[in-house]
């Protein structure tokens, strides 16, 4: 049996990569890539596509006697409703700092968790809150007010 003599190479030429090493490397990389994809795939699962949250809209009747600038907080909701000459408006009572529920106070709102204070229009007066309280979308039909907690509107939006 004769062995094939390879064409003469200079000693300085780099060894060509043997085929087996090349295949081995390929297999290794293929494994790494498939592990990566598997990991990414697994990460997809915990990221919920559909959020199991209840509807954010609700409807209430404002008390007849509600004075201008006086807050009305529907039971079990984190929204303060107001009515003045210009119309009805809703300010979210979820603190923009870390999500505690602010309490309406004489001069606006105060948060029990880290002491943020807000002006009656929701602007930050004091404390760590980075943003004003959100104003929420309201629509009025007769004596009933519908509030959409999921939709914010620009500050100062009042609905007659």
């Amino acid at each position: 049996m004769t062995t094939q003599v390879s064409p003469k190479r200079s000693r300085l030429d780099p060894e060509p990569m043997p085929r087996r090493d090349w295949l081995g490397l390929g297999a290794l990389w293929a494994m790494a890539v498939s592990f990566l994809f598997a990991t990414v795939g697994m990460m997809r699962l915990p990221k919920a596509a559909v959020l199991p949250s209840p509807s954010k809209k609700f409807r209430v009747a404002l008390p007849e006697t509600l004075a201008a600038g006086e807050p009305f907080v529907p039971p079990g909701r984190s929204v303060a409703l107001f009515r003045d000459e210009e119309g009805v408006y809703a300010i979210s009572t979820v603190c923009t700092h870390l999500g505690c529920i602010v309490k309406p106070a004489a001069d606006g709102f105060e948060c029990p968790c880290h002491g943020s204070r807000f002006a009656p229009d929701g602007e930050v007066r004091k404390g760590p809150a980075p943003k004003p309280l959100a104003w929420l979308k309201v629509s009025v039909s007769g004596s009933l007010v519908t509030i959409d907690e999921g939709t914010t509107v620009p500050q100062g939006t009042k609905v007659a």
Partner: protein
Amino acid sequence: MPAIGTKDALTEFRENLRAAPKRILETAFRTGLPTTDRSRSTFVFGNVFLHLHSVRTHRWSLRWLTTAGLGIATLAAFLITLVTGVLLMFYYKPYPEVAYQSIKDIHFVVPTGRFIRNLHRWAANVMVVTVILHMARVFYTAAYRRPREYNWLIGIALLVVTLALSFTGYLLPWDQLAYWAITIGANIAQSPREVTDALGITEWFDPGGLQRLLLLGSDTVGEEALIRFYLLHVMLLPLVLAALLAVHFWRVRKDGGLARPDDADDILARERREETYPVFTEQPQKTYHLAAIVRGRTPAVGRGPENTVPSMPHLFYAEFGVLMLTVAVCLLLSLLWDAPLKELANPNVPENPAKAPWYFLGLQEMVSFSAFMGGIGVPTIVLIGLGLIPYLDREAEGTGRWFGGPGGWPLVRLSLLFGFAAALGVEAFAIRFGWLREWFPNIHQLAITVFNPGTVLTALYAAFSIWAMKRHNSTRAGALALFTCFLCGFTVLTVIGTYFRGPNWEFFWSPADWPGH
């Protein structure tokens, strides 16, 4: 027909049966009682759990002052939470409201339920304390240095997982405290929005929102969040912790046992009054030939075993003692103080003040200035700083000695002074005079995010440690200063958050001054 002179099968069977218990023991343990050096060695390396230890232990490692038993105490506390946690799982049901009722049942109805719950709570607290002390011990004895750098990193991971375990466990009772601590925690996860909002890019790039979504599985704290925290608490995190612990212990052994000074043998010789302990009572059976072909520094080579003793019984008895002590402390605490349970969670009325567990109150204090910096920014900087210590300080002086290295105890004392003064000063200023938002109501949020008591304190500490590094011309001195300051800051912020903050997170000298209570 059996051949004459041999026992018949029935007799043999009867004899085997009689000998079975003894043989089972023999096959399980292979060795007799560990009475000789040889059987003591096989006792260790023949056992899958014990062989995380080496067969012999250096006397230095057994000194009380070397470790104060803190690593083992942490492990012991973890084991207690493991056992009591599994017991609690018999009755706990991870569903809102039902969860609260089940904890109530455990507390008031289940036989020994309250005691087991108390133990679980207390052991978790003890574990947090000991893990911090253990880290401090490793740091101050400069035991993180070559070849132990990587084990220090594993240690940082263990610290994080320990805190994560505590945090996830805190939600499970679904009481007011739990609910609001988790609401705050989840919103801290979301707080990168403080920056993205200020830059106006949240719509396209919202890592905060993603983190919160992954944590809660919903946009509110509800059943999805509870089941996720439950999964993390009873399954994922304990598994991760166990895996990391295995690496941690294995590394302690492979890095040549515990760090000790170069002259440890001389010190021991001076300390010991009675005659030298008989080292080998017979010829050693374990050879070190393998060590010759293992890469790296193997301590047994060329050093001689003069100052080592068999791990069985010396090391194991010491470890057992620490375990028993930890158990005793947890038992005592559980008998004296019940784990708290507030009212059922109410998503409309926050607990006031809503306080996280004590070891997070330092964070909460910083968060009360800026959510992102206090909750994510500064902690990340601190963790990265801690993790890099062994890679930035690569000196050799002082290894294995308390407060070893240039500067030494006087520098630590000075750092204590500076660390406490700076933290108290910054806090007192912010409490007395308020912060940027109160002076300039329209200031840009980014200014507060970048410049707030948390970042100011961090900068002060960094500056001080650079000064110490220059003054002593030593990276170890810089590390000593920085780590000591970190401990001071942690202590001051935690104490203020725990004892001096009341309703609306306002400052009170004592809870007796709280309004409306």
